[in-house]
């Protein structure tokens, strides 16, 4: 009986969550639509202009084809209807369905950003924790200077410098691209090839986030180290490593997870610069081009997908909170 009630409660929670999700997506879609249209510029005019000799008839035809001749509210209605059926529309500029365009680019961006995210999180928190535990020592100073340096370095400059050193001077790594074009490789060789191409873009993208997490983790560790429960643990005679892993790290990670969750979405935005420098065939570059060309369907499609990713990441952050801090689980306090 109790099991059935709890299953019903979970079901209800899931339905509430799903309804909220749809509502949030619709609000985001509407906001995106308004935002995109608020920018001056007309895609038909850009396209017609590029052909070098347009006339009003061509412009009119293009507007009709784009659906731009419809009243604003009708266009918004069509957009929301499409969003609900997960139809992202058709890019008239690229002459292909938007979903296809996004799905072609999404894996490369996810590979780049998720790897950079994991690297930044792992190395950043480790360095930060080490610096925090040895606060005031030479190691701490060294890590602090290093993280400040990484934080202050412009992403594109770091990328170009890495290329100059590791590609031009030493010839160790490929300068750009996702993989060696036209190479006949076995699947294993291809994985290594992509990995080799990933090193510099991932390091460039991770650098600034790595610095942020390191700084955050350092101060968080220092703060936690002075809490009463750590003193209690020490008084109980617990071994140093056990205190660090079992008590300090777990508590110190909370602010890091909060910031990391917030920044995961921004990471995709930051990838635009890296994708440009390293000719990485990802979503960032597609977004940038779509903005320039006012390719509305592509822009709205990308924004929608990114919104969903951010919502999912927020959910994941919530779940991680519960894992590292049981107090946050409803009813557990």
């Amino acid at each position, binding site marked *: 009986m109790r099991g059935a009630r709890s299953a019903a409660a979970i079901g209800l929670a899931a339905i509430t969550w799903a309804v909220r999700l749809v509502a949030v997506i619709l609000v985001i879609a509407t906001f995106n639509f308004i935002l995109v249209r608020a920018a*001056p510029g007309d895609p038909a*005019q850009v*396209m*017609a202009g590029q052909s070098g*000799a347009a*006339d009003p008839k061509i412009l009119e035809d293009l507007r009709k084809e784009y659906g731009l001749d419809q009243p604003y509210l009708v266009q918004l209605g069509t957009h929301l209807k499409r969003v609900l059926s997960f139809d992202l529309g058709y890019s008239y500029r*690229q002459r292909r369905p938007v979903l296809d365009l996004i799905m072609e680019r999404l894996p490369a961006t996810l590979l780049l950003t998720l790897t950079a995210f994991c690297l930044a999180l792992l190395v950043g928190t480790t360095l930060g924790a080490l610096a925090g535990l040895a606060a005031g020592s030479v190691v701490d100073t060294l890590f602090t200077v290093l993280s400040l340096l990484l934080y202050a370095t412009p992403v594109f400059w770091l990328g170009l410098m890495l*290329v100059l050193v590791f590609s031009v001077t030493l010839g160790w790594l490929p300068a750009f691209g996702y993989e060696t074009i036209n190479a006949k490789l076995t699947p294993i060789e291809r994985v290594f090839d992509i990995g080799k191409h990933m090193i510099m873009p991932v390091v460039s993208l991770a650098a600034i986030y790595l610095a942020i997490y390191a700084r955050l983790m350092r101060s968080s560790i220092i703060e936690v180290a002075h809490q009463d429960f750590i003193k209690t643990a020490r008084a109980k005679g617990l071994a140093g490593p056990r205190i660090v892993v079992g008590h300090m790290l777990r508590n110190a990670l909370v602010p890091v997870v909060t910031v990391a969750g917030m920044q995961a979405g921004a990471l995709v935005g930051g990838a635009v610069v890296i994708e440009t420098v390293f000719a990485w*065939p990802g979503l960032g570059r597609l977004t940038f081009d779509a903005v320039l060309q006012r390719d509305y369907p592509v822009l709205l499609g990308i924004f929608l997908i990114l919104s969903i990713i951010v919502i999912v990441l927020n959910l994941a952050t919530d779940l991680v909170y519960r894992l590292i801090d049981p107090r946050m689980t409803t009813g557990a306090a």
Partner: protein
Amino acid sequence: MNRREFTAAILAGSAALPFGITRAVGQTRGGTLNTIIQPEPPVLVTALNQQQPTLTLGGKIYESLLKYGPDLKPMPGMAKSWEISPDGLTYTFKLFEGITFHDGKPMTSEDVVFSCMQVLTQTHPRARNNFARVASAEAPDPLTVVFKLKQPFAPFLGCFDCTSAPILPKHVYEGTDFRKNPMNDKAIGTGPFKLKEWVRGSHVHLVRHDGYYLKDQPYLDEIIYRVIPDAASRALALENGTVQLVQWSDIEFFDVTRFKKQANLEYTTNGYEYFAPHQWLEMNNRIAPMNDKRFRQAVMHLIDRDALNKRVYFGNAKIATGPISSKTRFYDGNVKKYEYSLDKAKALLDEMGLKPGANGKRAEIKYVVPPYGEVYQRAGEFFRQSFSRVGIDLVLVGTDMAGWAEKVGNWDYEMTQNLLYQLGDPALGVSRTYISTNIKKGILFSNTQGYSNPEVDRLFEEAAVALDEKKRQELYTKVQQILVEDVPVAWTLELEYPIFYDKSLKNVVTTAIGSHETFGVVHKS
């Protein structure tokens, strides 16, 4: 056209080398050409999109009836010969035998008529203007195409390069929505190279079309166009040999001097004769003080165009003397000269009553910076300094591509910089900027500055339909003189984009469209 010219036209058509201007001797088969495409084109079908990168790539896939030598004279493309009737109304093209599309189906005169009259008139604005002059197009036999014009149009023979009139397969497009045809992804043409793979955001891979109709061609096995969005990365790719060819603005002007010294590279500015990129400072003629001819003349005097070329374009340009480029037919440099003289500029401004106020300023003008890269930003800064020397404040306004297109297209600007291609003949690429019938709100690259002069309209119209070359020259000389006096726009420079290629490559630039050419004759040594 007199009888002698008529005969010459036939001879030119039948005698010109069918392999392009340089018949390759001792060429080798095989090899891969790695090069750059920037920005990535939205589609590869040149009938649907005419952006410069689309034309570079599509030029290898799609062909047309003719090619044009560096002197802009027609040479055989898919047409091995052509005839023009003495009245200049009928153009008869004879096609090469054995031309096939990439899907193996034969290309016939039916495909030419279908492409020119049904597809291009709907999808290609430039071709639409050209073929609107055609009364009828017929395919009397599979290898003959006959165009009959409504009235003579002198540059009609200049409308058949692969970027202006690409031929598409009728069997693929007939009865379909051309723009949405799923086969657009396959890009089926007759060119020496066909599409193997397009990994968006990464590269486009073209491979040899084995059924190509010209013996042994193409010599290369494949061409790989890499998408490299960042200018510094593109320079690096050329430097370390990842790519062996760059064109147009792949390399920034400030890098040209450096690459000229790189031992393995050839450098040329040839291959842009058809386009002849012509740049100017555009002034909205509708608004004071730009509506006064004396102001516009003053602008010609106050810009040190030699310094502009040296400091902003690093010497990669020639000074423009008027509306027609020195590379375009019917150019006449014998026009009024506007030397750099601040005194003359000030005198003209004083004369029109635009005198310095109490703060020493004569006027404030908004200048919309074209969003096409750093060089345009630097040119804007240069103009701001130039104008400040005569007491005019030029306020630079930044925008992006769509914003610029909207502002200029809708005449919502005071000053900007513009660049247009001349397309080989003033009737194709020059008159559009100055004739009053092309003042069309909302249309970019029309007569956006709003200049109107009935005499100029008449001269351009007469020159377009006159068949006698001397007569055309007279008319264009006259129109150049009037325009240079009126200064509808302040011409600055004829840009000379570089082409750098590895010395192992041969026959890279053979025609007036340079890197847009089919590359059938390009080979490695």
